[in-house]
């Protein structure tokens, strides 16, 4: 009990600090700290799958994305410093946030005992899916259509970011060229962490069928390692017009959709897996989806093309 209270106070304190921090860079650091602490909260609530996702994408990749935005904004920050929003706007925003928080708290506190849950039905039907982890069963079997739509949404976001490029660099290299200092610390870090990270990412993907994990968390770790390799200069970001890159991005949603449509032929329903092949089909979907999500996330952080493609 004391542990939980202390953790909640710490999380709230870091959240408040993030909001009142004067410098955007400091706020991003606070945001990352807040996310890592939230992962602890999820473990405390016995939700390791959510903790994995929070640590990987909620804090890590999103933090780096915000950092990139804050770096780009630095030049305009000093000139825009005089345009702070007025007191009425800030009060209105604060009251809206407080209302939403109070509403969510009221809903959660008014759950009947025991809270309504589909967990027994999930556990009862999981044998047919061949999986051992109920969260993966929900993501890939019971609500597979949500996961399919999520992969498409990621692609759309990426297309949106690419469309921010200027016409003359369309199809070019995302982001600036990072130079690798081959004797330096940055390169050593990348050469050390990236292989280990790839192994850990694949491990977390693979155990997702029986333990907390899965293709989304594994893909995020792979994406983080690719981003690490790019920012240390170990590899250059690929030009967005490369065919292999676009195929890699499309492979996941395409395979998912194909197997979904094949469900019509096999069992008469979209995205229905015939029982003896369920696990095989799920793994067949998960591998390309993981690669596509990893590529999409890495390219989302890399940003719109900024350098002309060589011809």
């Amino acid at each position, binding site marked *: 009990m004391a542990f939980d209270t202390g953790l909640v106070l710490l999380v709230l304190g870091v959240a408040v600090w993030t909001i009142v921090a004067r410098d955007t860079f400091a706020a991003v650091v606070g945001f990352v700290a807040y996310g890592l602490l939230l992962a602890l909260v999820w473990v405390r609530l016995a939700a390791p799958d959510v903790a994995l996702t929070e640590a990987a994408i909620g804090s890590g990749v999103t933090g780096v994305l915000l950092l990139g935005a804050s770096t780009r904004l630095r030049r305009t920050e000093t000139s825009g410093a005089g345009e702070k929003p007025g007191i009425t706007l800030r009060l209105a925003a604060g009251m809206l946030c407080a209302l939403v928080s109070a509403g969510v708290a009221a809903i959660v506190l008014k759950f009947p005992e025991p809270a309504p849950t589909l967990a027994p039905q999930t556990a009862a039907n999981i044998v047919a899916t061949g999986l051992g982890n109920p969260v993966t069963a929900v993501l890939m079997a019971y609500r597979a259509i949500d996961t399919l739509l999520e992969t498409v949404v990621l692609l759309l976001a990426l297309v949106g970011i690419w469309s921010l490029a200027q016409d003359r660099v369309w199809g070019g290299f995302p982001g600036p060229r990072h*130079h690798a200092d081959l004797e*330096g*610390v*940055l390169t*050593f*870090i990348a050469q*050390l*962490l990236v292989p280990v990270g790839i192994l850990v990412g694949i491990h977390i993907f693979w155990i997702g069928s029986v333990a907390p994990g899965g293709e989304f968390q594994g893909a995020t770790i792979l994406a983080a390692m690719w981003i690490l390799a790019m920012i240390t200069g170990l590899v250059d970001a690929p030009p967005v017009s490369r065919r292999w890159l676009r195929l890699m991005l499309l492979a996941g949603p395409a395979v998912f959709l194909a197997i979904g449509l094949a469900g019509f032929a096999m069992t008469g329903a979209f995205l229905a897996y015939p029982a003896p092949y369920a696990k095989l089909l799920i793994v067949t979907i998960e591998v390309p989806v993981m690669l596509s999500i990893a590529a999409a996330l890495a390219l989302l952080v890399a940003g719109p093309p900024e350098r002309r493609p060589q011809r």
Partner: protein
Amino acid sequence: MSFALDALTILAVSTGAFFFLAGTVGLLRFPDALSRLHALTKADNLGLGLVVLGLLLQAEGSFAALKLIGVWLLTLLAGATVTQLIARTARPGGTHE
């Protein structure tokens, strides 16, 4: 036997927690960023190593034990190299890569 293991675990974890406290005291008291970084990395990683040692004695199965050691090694190596990087931003000359 299990009582001896439990006692050792309690000892190791307590010493590890003490080193975490020492690291934080260093963080609070040292005058400049470089020495604070020093306190943070050395003491905290040593504390983590002792905590892992204590938990190893309670681990069930060799795979779990190997994972614990793997986490510790990764933190150690990543921490040591990243600290070098952070130190470069802290030193008076600033960074030049």
